[in-house]
């Protein structure tokens, strides 16, 4: 793709000293991603990042489902900022795309309507006795990885290249609606030709796949999923994307948003069960990675430390292409070797019955 517009959408991304806000979905479904993000920042890149146990959900899921009023979410967000100020930080980085969208939206609201900021300050003080400062820098955690992508490339132990063919891996990137569709200038590359994930993939040797439904929503869409009767609509959106990308034969999908990572991964199982259709090569699913996992693989982290056993679609075919050495028998062993359980076999998974791992119970 002849990208020319992404350079018009640059944003300031702090280089160091981050206050980290976790994601409700990511820490539950992809806990290794958040852990490895902290490790990459502090251990590999030597940056200072504060993982504050005091912060809460931003209540974004409730906000977008109409159960949390605007004034409430403003006060909750103000409390997060107060915690950041109290911890001595000025650079706020959020793991969740929905949260990032909300922080961006509320900061913009406060700028456009200063009376709402005043009211929020009052509400926060009455409720908690806290005061807050506006962050000097707000970024999504993918912005932070993007900012350090060349340094990661220098420390990389492998590239996003098929070790068997020497060809760059073909990657579908999905940035998530709330990253840049609401405020295009707050996302690296804007909303039409976003570059935050594409920049990482290109710096690490992969090749981006552009396809007709690239901009389409993954299907999460809060009410699409949270209201059980609407879930068919959610699946239909993922189905549309997967149908569209499949002819391009991507090696994996990398997602920005925790929700998108989850839905593009798990709905592959659902579609396979409903229709018997799989979208990956060799009749399996297309592995779906978070960008933290992608960075972790490039830097040589163990896939099971990255939490990739939590995926619906098995990642082993991708690991084999990358030449990653892994211990199959350790896949379902958690911390301290504790067996965490093994999911039932599914059509989107790669491992046939005769290659089932010997689980050390």
């Amino acid at each position, binding site marked *: *793709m*002849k*990208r020319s*517009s992404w350079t018009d959408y640059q944003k300031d991304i702090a280089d160091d000293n981050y206050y980290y806000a976790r994601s409700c979905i990511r820490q539950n479904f992809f806990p290794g991603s958040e852990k490895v993000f902290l490790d990459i920042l502090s251990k590999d890149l030597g940056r200072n990042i504060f993982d504050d146990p005091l912060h809460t959900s931003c209540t974004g899921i409730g906000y977008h489902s109409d159960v949390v009023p605007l004034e409430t979410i403003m006060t909750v967000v103000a409390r997060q900022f107060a915690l950041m100020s109290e911890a001595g930080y000025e650079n706020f980085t959020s793991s969740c795309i929905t949260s990032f969208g909300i922080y961006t939206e509320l900061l913009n609201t406060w700028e456009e309507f200063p009376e709402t900021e005043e009211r929020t300050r009052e509400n926060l003080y009455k409720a908690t006795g806290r005061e807050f400062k506006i962050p000097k820098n707000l970024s999504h955690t993918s912005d932070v990885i993007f900012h350090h992508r060349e340094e990661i490339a220098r420390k990389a132990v492998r590239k996003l290249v098929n070790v068997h063919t020497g060809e760059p891996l073909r990657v579908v990137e999905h940035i998530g609606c709330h990253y840049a569709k609401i405020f295009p200038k707050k996302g690296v590359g804007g909303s039409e*030709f976003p570059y935050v994930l594409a920049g990482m993939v290109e710096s690490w040797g992969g090749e981006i796949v*552009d*396809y007709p439904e690239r901009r389409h929503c993954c299907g999460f869409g809060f009410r699409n999923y949270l209201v059980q009767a609407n879930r068919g609509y959610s699946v239909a959106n993922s189905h549309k994307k997967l149908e569209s990308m499949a002819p391009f034969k991507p090696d994996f999908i990398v997602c920005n948003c925790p929700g998108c990572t989850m839905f593009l991964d798990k709905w592959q199982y659902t579609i396979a069960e409903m229709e018997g259709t799989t979208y990956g090569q060799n009749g399996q699913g297309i592995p779906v990675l978070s960008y933290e996992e992608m960075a972790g693989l490039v830097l040589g982290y163990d896939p099971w430390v990255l939490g990739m056993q939590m995926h619906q679609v098995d990642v082993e075919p991708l690991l084999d292409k990358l030449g990653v050495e892994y211990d199959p028998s350790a896949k379902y062993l958690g911390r301290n070797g504790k067996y965490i359980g093994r999911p039932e076999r599914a059509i989107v998974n790669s491992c046939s019955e005769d290659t089932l791992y010997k689980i050390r119970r």
Partner: protein
Amino acid sequence: MKHVIIIGGGIAGMQCACTLAEKGIATTIIEKDSDLGGKIRSWHVLFPTFTPADQVLSAVRHRLAKAESVTIKTGCEAVKITPKCVTLSTGEELTCDAVVIATGFTLFDARLKEEYGYGIYDNVVTSVDLEQMFNKGEVRLTSGLTPRRIAILHCVGSRDEKVCQRHCSKVCCVTGVKQAIELKKMFPAADVFNFYMDIRMFGPGYEEMYREAQLMHNVHFVRGRISEVSPTIDGRLQIKAEDTLTGRPLKMGIDMLVLLIGMRSNDMNPTLEAESGLKCQPSGFMQPKDSFLGNVESPIEGIFYAGAVTAPKNIGESINEGTAAALAAAEWINK
């Protein structure tokens, strides 16, 4: 001998100089490009008569060549204008008895409508690019093949608040119809679709041409905007749109997308306002003294307007305004 400086050597400025010369008034044309003619130079044929643009331009050039006391300064711009003096970008100061501003418009940059992928995807072209292809006598895809299905999108950079261009560029609708007919003549087997918000056929013969496009050339018209363009696996383009007459979304594979880019106000208008005390309209085009009785006059006596500097206009209107501004300037300096 009285002397009028004309800023801009497009069709309106050239016509203005011809008329002033016929009145025995000396003129100096200031043109920023290396040649006179303006944007019509890149046009193929003109609506609704399909008259070659070069034929119209050559006629005016011919008259200008024969005119006496016309000085042409190309490759320079006016940076400050008063009724008695024009300061050039070179620092040179030219004295005069009146000034006609005929600086025209600036073409909308299609890259700003990122969703259409201009400059990113192959075979997404602007109406100006297409005219240049017509001029070369060859419309081809980047693969070298001929297009089988072409979509023409109206109002790119016009009537669009998102890109701060609320005005109608007026001539794009008829240009879309004209280009569709030219494409059908070139590729009779191709499907040509016009995606529009409204079809505004304001001029004589325009409505007839619109009907002819449908009846004689089988050009398709879909009332709806294209929302985005994407590449397909076979190297074509996929467009998404809404057909607002049937109330349904549509997805279509096409070979070529033509963006009818609008006229926006000239980039130098804010400088004119700041440096010369003239006024811009909310659209950015220059504000004439009066919309009915002083269309070619500015609020400053001795400074006149001609052509698309005050609003989007077609070639005929621009030529007429060149004449009108010349007559108004001649009348003023002979008072």
